[in-house]
C-alpha cells in the first residue's frame, strides 16, 4: 500500500493514506521528501513511488483497454 509522507523527523516519517497514519523508518530510502508516496513494509519505507512511472503504466493500461496493441518495452 503506497503511503504519503506527511512529516519527517530524522530517520522517521509519519506516512498517511486515506486518514490512516503510520510511523515508518525512512533510512532505507534516499532523498525522501514530504509529499512523496512510499511503500512501507514491516515498519520501513522500502522504496519511493515514481509518480511519472505510475501515470505511464496507467496510460499504457488505458491503451491496452482500448485495444491498441502495445506492451511495455
Amino acid at each position, binding site marked *: 500500500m503506497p503511503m504519503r509522507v506527511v512529516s519527517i523527523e530524522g530517520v522517521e516519517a509519519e506516512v498517511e493514506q486515506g486518514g490512516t497514519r503510520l510511523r515508518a523508518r525512512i*533510512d532505507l530510502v534516499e532523498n525522501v521528501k514530504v509529499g512523496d508516496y512510499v511503500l512501507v513494509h*514491516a*515498519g520501513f519505507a*522500502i522504496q519511493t513511488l515514481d*509518480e511519472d512511472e505510475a501515470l505511464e*503504466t496507467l496510460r499504457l493500461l488505458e491503451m*491496452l483497454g482500448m485495444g491498441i496493441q502495445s506492451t*511495455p518495452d
Partner: protein
Amino acid sequence: MALRWVSEFRNGRVAQRLIERIAEIADRECTLMEVCGTHTMAIARFGIRQMLPNSVRLISGPGCPVCVTAQSDIDRFIAIGQVDGVVLATFGDMVKVPGSQFSLRDARTHGIDVRVVYSPFEAVELARQMPDREVVFMAIGFETTAPGIALSIIQAENERLRNFFIYPANKLVPPAMKALLSFDDVRIDGFLCPGHVSTIIGMRPYEPIATDYGKPCVIAGFEPLDILQAVLMLLVQIRSGQAKVENQYRRAVRPEGNEAARRLIDEVFEPQAVEWRGLGIIEESGLKLRRKYEHFDARLTFDVQVPQTKEHPACQCGEILRGAALPTDCKLFATACTPDHPIGPCMVSSEGACAAYYRYREVSLS
C-alpha cells in the same frame, strides 16, 4: 472511496479489456507461477484465476515467509523460548504455526513469553525496556524484510545492547526460483516475480532464470490490473519464444533496486545454504550473520535440546510450496485443516496458499 495509487489499478472496465487481450493471445497451455504470497492473496481475493482462460494456469510458489520456514527452525525457536529469562518476539503471522509439539500461541500456556511485534525495531525496544531479560527476534522474511533486520542489528550493536538476539531464518527468493526449476514434478513456463522483493534486488538477479533456464520473468505489482498486465506480458513473451526479465511494476521497482538497502544486508549478513520447507536445502538461499555480528545469533548463544521434528504425514504444504500440488489436492484441506485448526503453515499465514484458497473460493460466472 479512492485511495491514491490503489483505486486506479482496480478499474473493472480496464480489467475486462485486459482479460479479452489475454484470451486473444493465450493459444497454448501454460503454467505461470506467482512466487510471492502477497500475489497469491491478491489473485484469490480478486478472483483473478477464474477470469483467465482455462489454458492459463496460475500456481502459487514458495513466497510466504512463514510457510517456507523449516519446521526444525520453528521448533528450535520455541525451545529457546523455554530458556529462563528469554522473551520471544515475532511477527504475528508466525504465532499460530504448529511446531512439532505446540505452536507459539500455545507456547504461552507452557510459560513461554511470546510478544508479537510489527517491526524488528519493536523487538529492539523490548530489549531496551527489559535489560534483565533476553529478547530473541525470529528473523523471517525475504529480501524485503532483511534490510530492516540488518538495521536493527546495527542499532543494537551501536547501543551495545547485549540482550537482543535474532534467530536468523531470512531467505532469498532468486535461488529458490532456480531450485524450483530442478524439480521434475513441477512445470513452470514463466514467473510473476515478487514486487516488494524486487524493490530491493532490482531486475538483475532474475537474469539467469531468463537466460540460463529460458523462463520469462515479469516483476509485478499487487493490484488486479498489475497482475493482469504482467500475465499478458508473460504470454506475449511465451508466444514469441522469448525469455527475458521485464518490469511491470515500474512505479516502485527501479532496475537497479534499492542499493542502500542491499548494502545494509551485505554489511550484516552473508548468504548460506538453508533448509526451506518443501524445497529442502538450497545453496546460498538464506542469510547468516557475518562473524562481526555473530554474537547476535540466538542459535549460537542458547544451546538447547530440540525435540525430534514432526510434521503431519498427510500435510502437503511441501508440494504446495513448490507448485507441485494445489491446496485443493491435499486431503486435509478444508476438512482437518482450516484456519481455525491449521495443520500446515500454508493454512496459517494470511499469505499462505491454503488460507487464500480457503477464504476465497471461486464460483463460476453464470
